[in-house]
């Protein structure tokens, strides 16, 4: 006997909603094809590649020092971190010693960059959830950092701030004082952000329990940076595999407990403070000395491969570089982009949540499409 399944009263079909590549909250040219049941996300397909410029291929055809300014164009809101990562990798390949003063200044630049990037993240993330004032507050402080960078290297977005073996420039006179002043200002402004968000009832409702992912799963998914630390994994390249001058400074790696959007928010807010702490220590202990190590005029690393990672504001940015030892350009140049790996986890995070949470979660993993697509 055949038993027929009861016929549903109405045809309910899933709505396919194409979010992006032009959408105010996808932070660039990200496209998400959502399958919705009402407003609930059944599944999602994340489509990237709209900003693919072939930077890896391009880098394999540029000489070693030209590549630095291409790394600016990947994570364009945290250019100094990519600069630093690339230069450190080449230095590792060539076994070049970088003077301590340069290491310190690099650390200061890296941490200023982290604060600037986190400011942009905080602003856009809060904006996505509807708190528009935080956006302008955060940009106000980011502007101060851009001014500092401008004074140091003349650029406000794509800094080209490091060189293989050291730095292009010493810090201008009085710059360290301004950095200290900035730290002082930033400390009080952090309180303003927190007043608007941290204990705000609506903010809590919107972020707590959204996109929960536990530590082991986050590791398996390859999440990195604050997104991974929000799940309670104390993984930070600065601590685990110290580079630049991080092993000389005292700082903590904040971690979350629940692994939800709120924890990722708290982790990044605490990172603001830790970065300020590092900057203060670095400025206070800034050693005298040269700013460039012993590097040949023509950079031609010996044949070999290496992978080296630094902690960018988004997470572990790794460079895998192969040199054939003969030509003046890398044989293989590969970037392990943190935004890319975090974006991969988005599909897992948004499943079962509402459309409004999709927007919150895109903000929560802090991606830059220039880096995802390269």
């Amino acid at each position, binding site marked *: 006997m055949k038993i027929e399944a009861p016929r549903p009263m109405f045809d309910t079909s899933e709505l396919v909603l194409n979010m992006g590549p032009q959408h105010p909250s996808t932070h660039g040219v990200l496209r998400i094809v959502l399958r919705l049941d009402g407003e609930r996300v059944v599944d999602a397909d994340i489509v990237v590649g709209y900003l693919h410029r072939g930077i890896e291929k391009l880098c394999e055809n540029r000489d070693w020092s030209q590549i630095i300014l291409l790394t600016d164009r990947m994570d364009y809101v945290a250019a100094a971190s990519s600069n630093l990562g690339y230069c450190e990798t080449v230095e590792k*390949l060539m076994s070049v010693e970088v003077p301590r003063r340069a290491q310190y200044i690099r650390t200061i630049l890296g941490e200023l960059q982290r604060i600037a990037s986190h400011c942009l993240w905080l602003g856009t993330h809060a904006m996505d959830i509807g708190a528009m004032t935080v956006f302008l507050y955060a940009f106000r402080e980011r502007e101060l950092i851009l001014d500092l960078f401008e004074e140091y290297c003349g650029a406000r977005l794509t800094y080209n701030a490091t060189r293989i073996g050291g730095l292009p420039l010493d810090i201008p006179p009085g710059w360290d004082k301004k950095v200290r002043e900035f730290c002082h200002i930033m400390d009080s402004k952090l309180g303003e952000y927190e007043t608007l968000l941290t204990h705000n009832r609506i903010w809590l409702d919107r972020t707590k329990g959204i996109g929960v992912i536990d530590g082991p799963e986050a590791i*398996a998914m*390859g999440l990195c940076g604050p997104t991974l630390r929000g799940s309670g994994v104390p993984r930070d390249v600065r601590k685990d595999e110290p580079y630049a001058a991080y092993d000389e400074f005292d700082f903590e790696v904040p971690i979350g407990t629940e692994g939800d959007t709120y924890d990722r928010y708290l982790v990044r807010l605490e990172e603001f403070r830790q970065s300020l702490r590092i900057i203060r220590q670095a400025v206070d202990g800034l050693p005298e000395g040269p700013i460039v190590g012993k590097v040949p005029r023509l950079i031609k690393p010996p044949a070999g491969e290496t*992978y080296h990672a630094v902690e960018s504001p988004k997470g572990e940015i790794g460079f*895998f570089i192969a040199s054939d030892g*003969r030509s003046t350009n890398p*044989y293989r140049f590969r970037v392990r982009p943190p935004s890319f790996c975090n974006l991969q986890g988005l599909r897992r995070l948004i499943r079962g949540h509402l459309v409004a949470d999709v927007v919150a979660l895109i903000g929560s993993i802090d991606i830059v499409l220039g880096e995802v697509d390269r």
Partner: protein
Amino acid sequence: MPSTSTPKPVPKAKAPPAAPTGPVDPAPPEDVSEPDFLTQLRTAHGAAIQKVSYWVGDWSVIVSLSSLLDVVKYLRDAPDAAFDYCSDVTATDWPPRDQRFDVIYCLYSTRHRHRVRIKVHAAEDEPVPSVTDIWPAANWLEREVYDLFGVNFVGHPDRRRLLMPDEWQGHPQRKDYPLEGPGELLMENPQDWLRLRNIRDEAEIE
């Protein structure tokens, strides 16, 4: 004046250096001792290891393609190795070689805080088992390698192009793929290029 003057030796145009045939992968020097997990890997999967190399502080292991999955599973699960974090999956292309691709897995252990690189050699169409079951993180990374190199991953749950458009021809990151893209026509006259491509597409459909 000698009538038969020997022509001046024309400075020979420097021949472009022959394409490199592969990475150096130097063996570890005597004074560097192997980490424990490598020694144990040798005992557990000695047959699979083709070479262990060390360069500027990085250990890398070349394993045979057929036993890739066994080795990485061992590395993830063995308590002394515990490589639970797959940092990166990438490839390098060495066209003169028979097995032209090196597929490289950069692994990290959040427990022991050490790294290792696993490498396999693969020919153009040779199937490479996907490691997505071991690290879900490898999903997009393998898709990108497939997209840009054309490495033939098998067992991948969602093997589509990632960065390039779905209908793209060729794999741009290969060494024999022209830097300027699919051809000069695209750069000089995109309209014609598009028309040609459409004609080609229609021909394919028929």
